[in-house]
């Protein structure tokens, strides 16, 4: 893994969003002008704290920070992706609170969501980049093809060129989704487009990875909220993910964990164990090696998450999750056909063993042949 030079010990540099104020006024002012009451703001802050997985004791700090936060310009680039990440975000359940966060940023370019199209849309991007040079946030979803620039272009510009150009003036980059963070499905074997992640290309900017296929919407907004609140990148783990959301594995926070500990497993999707809600490890659950917030944050208005609905975790927020040997193959199983390997090896070795055995025998026979009967004369040298 190449280490981003801007990442020291996994912790990003402070990103100073205070210097420039792309959009005038603080968030507090903006909210008050919209007639949002202080009580509402307190509710917003409490929910934001909960969302960012920060302790409730931080709520007053968050409130103070949000009050004075500046509205950053955000440019969102979509490359080789399926729009799942945007779908996830726009379907975020905490609509009221989330809309507040969205209201507090200036989303200047997002070719799926913006009203403008064609040249107008691209112009908006260029203008935003120019006006907020050095200060805007760059959000990227999708991977970047390197084999042939023609595999994915926007307005005739290759993904690689657009990323390089947009990255230049960015204060920080948020890579959203597993494609942008680790290459994702396009990167899966045999990787026909030569897809790579953002961090494979951009080496001189702080990058925050928000993987998941798609990422949990509140995780995306939580990261944005952190920007707004503290004007810095949250603390990241060794592969660039905010620790607040990716600090613990699904397995460690899974409510089915006690079954794992007791050795109670569902063997099939419809056996007694499955009905009793036992651990899905044997059905291929990647929870033990997957770091994400699904088990606590959950999906669909906090309704459930895959394991709760009876399906093993597929590990979508981890690099190369598509090449992990099959979603339904338990983590402790080899990803290759080992019994065949073993059988071939044994067969080959048996032949070799016979050959070696015969060599040993002939060596011993030679020893017997050259042996001359020992007599008394032979006892002394």
């Amino acid at each position, binding site marked *: 893994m190449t280490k981003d030079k801007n990442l020291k010990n996994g912790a990003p540099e402070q990103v100073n969003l205070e210097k420039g104020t792309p959009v005038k006024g603080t968030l507090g002012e903006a909210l008050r002008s919209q007639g949002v*009451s202080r009580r509402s703001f307190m509710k917003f802050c409490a929910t934001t704290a909960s969302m960012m997985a920060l302790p409730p004791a931080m709520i007053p700090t968050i409130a103070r920070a949000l009050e004075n936060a500046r509205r950053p310009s955000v440019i969102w680039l979509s490359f080789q992706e399926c729009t799942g990440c945007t779908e996830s975000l726009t379907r975020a359940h905490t609509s*009221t*609170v989330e809309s507040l966060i969205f209201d507090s940023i200036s989303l200047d370019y997002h070719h799926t969501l913006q009203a403008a199209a064609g040249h107008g849309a691209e112009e908006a991007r260029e203008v935003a980049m120019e006006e907020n040079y050095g200060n805007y946030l760059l959000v990227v979803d999708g991977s970047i093809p390197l084999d042939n620039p023609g595999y994915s272009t926007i307005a005739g510009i290759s993904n690689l060129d657009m990323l390089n150009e947009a990255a230049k003036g960015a204060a920080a980059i948020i890579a959203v989704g597993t494609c942008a963070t680790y290459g994702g499905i396009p990167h899966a074997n045999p990787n026909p487009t030569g897809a790579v992640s953002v961090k494979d290309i951009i080496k001189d900017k702080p990058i925050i990875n928000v993987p998941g296929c798609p990422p949990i919407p509140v995780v995306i907004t939580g990261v944005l909220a952190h920007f707004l609140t503290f004007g810095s990148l949250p603390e990241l783990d060794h592969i660039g993910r905010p620790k607040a959301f990716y600090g613990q594995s699904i397995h460690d926070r899974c409510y089915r*964990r006690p079954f794992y500990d007791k050795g109670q497993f569902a063997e099939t999707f419809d056996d007694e164990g499955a*009905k009793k*809600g036992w651990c899905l490890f044997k059905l291929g659950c990647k929870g033990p090696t997957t770091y994400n917030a699904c088990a*606590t944050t959950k999906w669909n208005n*906090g309704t459930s998450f895959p394991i*709760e609905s009876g399906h093993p975790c597929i590990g979508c927020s981890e690099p190369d999750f598509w090449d992990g040997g099959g979603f339904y193959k338990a983590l402790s199983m080899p990803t290759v056909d080992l019994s065949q390997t073993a059988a071939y090896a044994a067969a080959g070795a048996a032949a070799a063993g016979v050959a070696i055995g015969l060599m040993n025998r002939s060596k011993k026979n030679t020893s017997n042949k050259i042996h001359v009967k020992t007599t008394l004369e032979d006892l002394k040298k």
Partner: protein
Amino acid sequence: MNPAETPQFNIHAGNEFTWNVKPILHEIRHALQRFLDNGETSIIDLRSIPLAPGEEESIIETLGRGEVQARLDVLGASEIYETKYTGVWLVTHYNDSDSIVSRFIEVTEMPDVLKSQREDVVHALNALVTELGTDKT
């Protein structure tokens, strides 16, 4: 499908499923003790703790309902009530579509969000002054 044939999926396991129910209740007990001893208030974010289906409900059920309840209309609804253990409050924030967005247990004499906020009072005064126009009697 005949209801009798409907498979029963027991994913809602018993109370002590993740073993987090009791510890949370104990944490509340300790918080209440601290509140009595030195007035220290506490907030527990129920969404930050891994809970199995049914466990959150189980905690809330244990706490029961007390004398005070309030409904706020702030960015969607919020429901606040004192549990049957005085000083222990349950604060539930909903969004526009009535889904829970956050839920806290607060140990305090009254959750801050219930109090009238100074900025809002200022705003209110201004509004009232505006309402009354120039009539300054």
